[in-house]
């Protein structure tokens, strides 16, 4: 069957959609992670904590689907990436899943008993459910940039040399902290929009301002480390963008500094890192000027810019291998078949707009600030 889009175009589209999903996750569930990571610090007593929790209680569940869908879409469109990354990051993945499992129960069960000890334990569970995934996602991205110690054999079975503790090195820790700062800023900006003016609001913006400054600083240091550390990989020899998805058929080498190559070839790509800086700065300005829409817009743009920077710097690499560069996964060698990419694109084009539409409707229904009065009087609130 002749498909109206060629394999190369579909691979690029799906690389873009991978970015859309990751950014969609960061922009929506990102603020939930940030809000729960801030929970014990911005809210001191039970009434305050309930305000914070109820600022996201009705929508976090839908937001989390971006993460689930991200997993499913990587599986469907980039099966090699799904197979290699999640098993390669085995224990890190377990830590993330265990932390995320605490969230649904934390939100729901906390309110079921008035006992302060019970509630305080769930508050810390929610904190773990926000902070730990934010950190580990960043650490994982840091490791992807430096390369993952895996190789593929002739049957394309993946083997690993790494260890759990090996994931934590200066660059990946920096990436982890950047991820935390970025999502905490986003969560603080959300609270600034969603919670009534008062002590919680004030504390949230204060933490937000700190997180904004840290985001800019860590992003700059990260950029310097990529540049001075000479990180990067390059494909040696001819690229067959229409070829079969078989990593053993492409030749890849580690090449110092190659992560900056794309900006020389396509100067427009510099927009991404610029947004990575401008976004948090705009958020900081919004916080200072008490312009909350600007704060949230700025933190959103910042997350967009930072994630896009990672993707564009690495293109066409998705998962480079540090021990066997020839096993590296790229846009050209690790996708699903032509037909699957095409069918899944159609499905996405039909359903993603519908999802965005009803999500917008739900946010519209729930529009407005959470007040201490609501929390005290509405029996449905957590």
């Amino acid at each position, binding site marked *: 069957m002749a498909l109206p889009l060629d394999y190369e175009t579909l691979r690029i589209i799906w690389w873009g959609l991978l970015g859309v999903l990751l950014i969609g996750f960061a922009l929506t569930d990102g603020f939930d992670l940030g809000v729960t990571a801030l929970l014990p610090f911005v809210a001191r007593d039970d009434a305050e904590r309930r305000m914070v929790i109820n600022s996201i209680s009705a929508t976090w569940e839908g937001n989390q689907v971006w993460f689930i*869908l991200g997993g499913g879409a990587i*599986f469907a469109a980039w099966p090699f990436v799904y197979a290699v990354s999640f098993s390669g990051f085995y224990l890190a993945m*377990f830590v993330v899943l265990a932390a995320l499992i605490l969230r649904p129960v934390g939100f*729901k069960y906390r309110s079921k008993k*008035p006992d302060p000890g019970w509630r305080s334990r769930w508050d810390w569970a929610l904190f773990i459910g926000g902070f730990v995934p934010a950190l580990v996602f960043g650490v994982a991205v840091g490791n992807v940039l430096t390369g993952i110690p895996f190789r593929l054999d002739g049957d394309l079975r993946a083997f690993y040399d790494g260890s759990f503790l090996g994931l934590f090195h200066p660059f990946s820790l920096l990436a982890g902290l950047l991820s935390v700062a970025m999502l905490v800023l986003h969560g603080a900006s959300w609270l600034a929009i969603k919670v009534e003016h008062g002590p919680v609001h004030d504390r949230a913006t204060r933490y937000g301002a700190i997180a904004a400054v840290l985001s800019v600083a860590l992003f700059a240091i990260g950029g310097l480390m990529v540049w001075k550390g000479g990180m990067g990989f390059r494909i040696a020899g001819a690229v067959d963008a229409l070829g079969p998805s078989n990593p053993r058929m492409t030749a890849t080498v580690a090449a110092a500094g190659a992560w900056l190559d794309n900006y020389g070839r396509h100067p427009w790509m510099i927009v991404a890192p610029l947004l990575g800086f401008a976004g948090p700065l705009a958020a900081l300005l919004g916080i200072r000027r008490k312009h909350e829409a600007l704060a949230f817009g700025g933190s959103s743009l910042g997350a967009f810019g930072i994630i896009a920077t990672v993707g564009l710097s690495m293109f066409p690499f998705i998962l480079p291998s540090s021990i066997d560069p020839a096993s590296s996964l790229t846009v050209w060698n690790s996708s699903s078949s032509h037909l699957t990419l095409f069918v899944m694109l159609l499905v996405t084009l039909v359903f993603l707009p519908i999802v965005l539409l009803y999500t917008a409707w739900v946010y519209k229904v729930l529009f407005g600030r959470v007040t201490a009065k609501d929390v005290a009087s509405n*029996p449905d609130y957590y």
Partner: protein
Amino acid sequence: MDMAIIELSRLQFALTALYHFLFVPLTLGLSFILVIMESIYVMTGREIWRTVTRFWGKLFGINFVLGVATGITMEFQFGTNWSYFSHYVGDIFGAPLAIEGLMAFFLEATFVGLMFFGWDKLSRLAHLFTTFMVAVGSNLSALWILVANGWMQHPVGSRFNPETMRMEVTDFMSVLFNPVAQAKFVHTVSAGYVTASVFVLGVSAWYLLRGRWTAVAKRSFTVAAAFGLASSLSVVVLGDESGYALTDNQKMKLAALEAMWHTEPAPAGIAIFGLPSLQGRETHFEVKIPYVLGLIATRSLTGEVTGIYELVAKAESRIESGIVAYDAVERLKVDRNDIAARERFETHKLDLGHAMLLKRFAADPRQATPEQIERAAWSTVPNVPVMFWVFRVMAGLGFFFIAFFLVAFYFSTRRRFDARWFLRAAVFIIPLPWIAAEFGWILAEVGRQPWAIEGVLPTFLGASSLTVPQLWTTIIGFTLLYGTLAVIEVRLMLAAIRKGPDEKHHDEEAEDGVVGGYAPLPAE
């Protein structure tokens, strides 16, 4: 190939999947029961039905969050623990999982928040719509998961591509309309409806026994009795067997659950008792009813139900044919333009998976001895005694639920809510649908062994390259976490049931037909 890695990976998958499925059936069924209850509220405008809906909605919520929490693990476990499986079939298997997220889980999860928090923000009709979307979303979710699982049982619409060393899709429509997947979907969601009906009926019966919340309990009893009768008929009549006649391995599953070692002249009898022995490959103390199995399995008097010995002989010849395909793939790896190898591959490719069964007994399937081939052929027989008994328990419970709901339906139409023996029984049988559902999954998945993808990829080749300590870390970790959460969940559920609805309806009032008032209580 370290079998400890395989066994531990299977153990973890079984534990997390069976645990996940403790919460799923109630979500599937209770969501539709909520839709029914809320529809009555919207149509009649009687506040008591709002109270009924909100009460069961609260229990729904306590259960729902654990379904979500444990579902997160499932979505990623293929990648973490079954890495080679994910590579080998991701081209087909990943699609239904992604579509599940996009069209089902998004719907369910986005609207569920509004369902809980939207009572005073939405009109009655808009709130009913929200509840309906949650029910549609969770049931569509089951559809896509079972499309994925159905493909593992009956892998249609795909072929092996030696250039990418994996299965690739050739026909999406046949994957979507896979008859095994369709049968499984109907069977599974019906089982969920039965579970929820038994739950609602049991809890209502407990209130009736105690004389508490009787206005809520009687209405809930009536809804559950009718919904339960319809779904218990559906779960048995539209049961799972329609797929068994399709392929060798589903035939093997049928033969195994019947412990039918040899083909019998049609129509075959069904064993209602027996002690199957794996060593002797025979069944002791068998008690058979003639003709019934042949009628059920083939829906004819002449259709044959193939026995295990005959299926093993067939597997042996498929292994021999598969070795040719395996050899061709190895040659194509060296030279993708080897035309002779390509031709041999095309002729024998359907049996490639069978050659891979040999990897458990021989390093290179091409060097396998006849004795190893025979062992590999016998490895296609799943655990017959487990299959035999698990099936009998599950099917027996299925028939029991029909009888149970017939009685419940009779009492509810006569408006007799005082038969204490029945109310007591209704409380005691609450755990039974969960046993039936879990046994159903054990039957389906143990029955698929030794395959991860039937006839395509043996389970023992699908696992990730992990270490035993890594696996124990996660198995113990998940067990502790899940165990703690299970204890908390059950306690909260019992507390919520003991507490009853938030809204105060004086039962006498409701009995007199007075519409009860609603006053929001401050949160706890």
